């Protein structure tokens, strides 16, 4: 009697593990498929790639020439190039990540996701990873082109620290994108306007093209709510000033906190907004 109950319990557990494994594999497939769509879609239109490469280079060129005109130290060119490179990720997070569910809703594909037996986080993760791959390739081109054109001096004493900072910044940024995507899911035109509204202030507050320390204390406080501010600060110090992990540990901790808060918050927001949408009937309501 006792052994049969134990056997039954073991079988039940085995079934559950099998089910969970199958579910995990299924959701990984979904993540890969969504990543594949993003990469395929983004690289099919050459005009798009050109715009994503040329516009950031033009913007950072303007700042580099401005600093040169003001006789700023040569490191400033490096600051601007790193800023321009990282800003490519912010633009991608904002337009291709945050506003994505809004577009999916308008085109009708969101409905297909919501009816399918999948984790919505798997879709968001696929979108984020696809965006990271695409933008990293573009960012490398911007970085290399900027460094060669303006002969910016880079001193990398700890390449692994630089890479760690880069990945933490990217994860934190895309976690923020996942949160925005969830929040924008129910909204119509407001999503579009909100994305526009967030673009320039983040350029300004994160110190993409100038040091944040020049800003008043209160503005710096607001800037500290943006993961890009810490990422940029840390990467610049490691890549341009030759700093090591001992100098930038505060940036690393800040980014880890951002990730730890933003990822669960994105999952919560996604569930909350989906349920709210189902309750209010706005989940698949278009052209609001």
């Amino acid at each position, binding site marked *: 009697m006792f052994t049969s109950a134990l056997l039954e319990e073991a079988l039940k557990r085995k079934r559950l593990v099998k089910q969970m494994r199958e579910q995990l594999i299924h959701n990984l*497939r979904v993540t890969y498929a969504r990543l594949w769509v993003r990469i395929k879609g983004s690289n099919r*239109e050459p005009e798009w790639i050109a715009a994503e490469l040329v516009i950031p280079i033009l913007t950072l060129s303007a700042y580099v020439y401005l600093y040169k005109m003001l006789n700023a130290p040569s490191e400033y060119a490096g600051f601007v190039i790193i800023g321009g490179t990282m800003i490519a990720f912010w633009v991608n997070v904002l337009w291709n990540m945050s506003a994505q569910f809004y577009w999916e809703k308008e085109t*009708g594909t969101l*409905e297909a996701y919501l009816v399918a*037996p999948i984790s919505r986080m798997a879709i968001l993760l696929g979108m984020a990873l696809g965006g990271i791959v695409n933008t990293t390739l573009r960012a490398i081109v911007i970085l290399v082109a900027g460094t060669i054109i303006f002969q910016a001096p880079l001193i990398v004493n700890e390449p692994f620290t630089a890479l760690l900072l880069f990945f933490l910044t990217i994860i934190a940024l895309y976690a923020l994108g996942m949160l925005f995507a969830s929040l924008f899911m129910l909204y119509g035109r407001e999503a579009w306007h909100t994305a526009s509204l967030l673009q320039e202030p983040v350029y300004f507050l994160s110190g993409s093209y100038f040091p944040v320390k020049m800003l008043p204390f209160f503005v710096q406080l607001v800037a500290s709510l943006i993961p890009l501010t810490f990422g940029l600060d840390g990467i610049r110090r490691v890549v341009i000033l030759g700093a090591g992990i001992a100098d930038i540990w505060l940036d690393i901790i800040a980014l880890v906190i951002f990730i730890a808060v933003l990822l669960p918050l994105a999952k919560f927001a996604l569930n909350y907004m989906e349920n709210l949408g*189902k309750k209010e009937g706005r989940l698949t309501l278009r052209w609001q």
Partner: protein
Amino acid sequence: MLHYCVETKDLVRIFKSKNEVVKALDKVSISIGEGEIFGLLGPNGAGKTTFIKILTTLLLPTSGEAYVGGFDVVKESDKVRKIISLVSGGETPGYGILSVRENLWFFSQLYGLSSSVAKEEIRRLMADLDFEEYAGTRMSKLSTGYRQRLNLARGLLSKPKILFLDEPTLGLDVLTAKNLREYIVDWAKRERKGTVLLTTHYMAEADEMCDRVAIIDRGRILACDSPFKLKENLEENVIVKMEVSSVRADFSFIDDLGGVVGYSQTRSIQTDTTTLKVMVHDESILSKITSKIEGQKLKILSVNKAEPTLEDVYISLVGRGFEEEEAG
């Protein structure tokens, strides 16, 4: 105990906005058996899409119960999603920048198909739905008819037990619509023994495809039976079609006549005529109608007795045709 594939009990859905409260579904109770093709017929705004959205877990009901495959659509939505598929007419069936084959592969992944199984299934469905030659074409370049084939293929990829079709032939030409209807009936009856819940406002579509039809208007089910039985109930009435010489003909006087079950009118600007379809209990009322029309100095071009259709069933229940209902 009889097992139903889809079952709803007193399903109510209310939409509230700042200015109004709309009861989109009002105590809808329906049972659909396995392998059945069930049609929900009604004009635009009748509550068809709301009903299908609740059953496909896209919308929560305000009250009442709904079960799909025996699972509660609210509490067991994950289980419901594993056995259903939704095809909506007039929808974009995927990403415009991807080809037909790529789109289908992507959607196959949402249902956990391995790539090799997916590829084989995609090839088969494209061949069955006769659009293999467009496999490499970008979705954005497809015509409406081929987009809808892609949409249907997308819905069938996962081999659902229950297929929900929301206006599947919306905006399609006659031949494409006919082909798709035939394919769906064939899929349900012979290949998979699948259950289909179809919403439509095309009478002929419901008549041709469905084992049973429920007529819905303003969120309420007015009748539910096989198309044959629904029409059979009208046999005691006389249905007459009259073609009248002006597009401006006014038939509002019929509202005041006793013994008229209902009527509908279709106006043709091209021929400057109006076709009046009237259903009466007693043939003697027809002479009153003709004399009133002639009193308006209009010519009656033709008068024919008509066999009952599902539109007549709707007229007998609501008093008006679909077009007037949608315009109103």
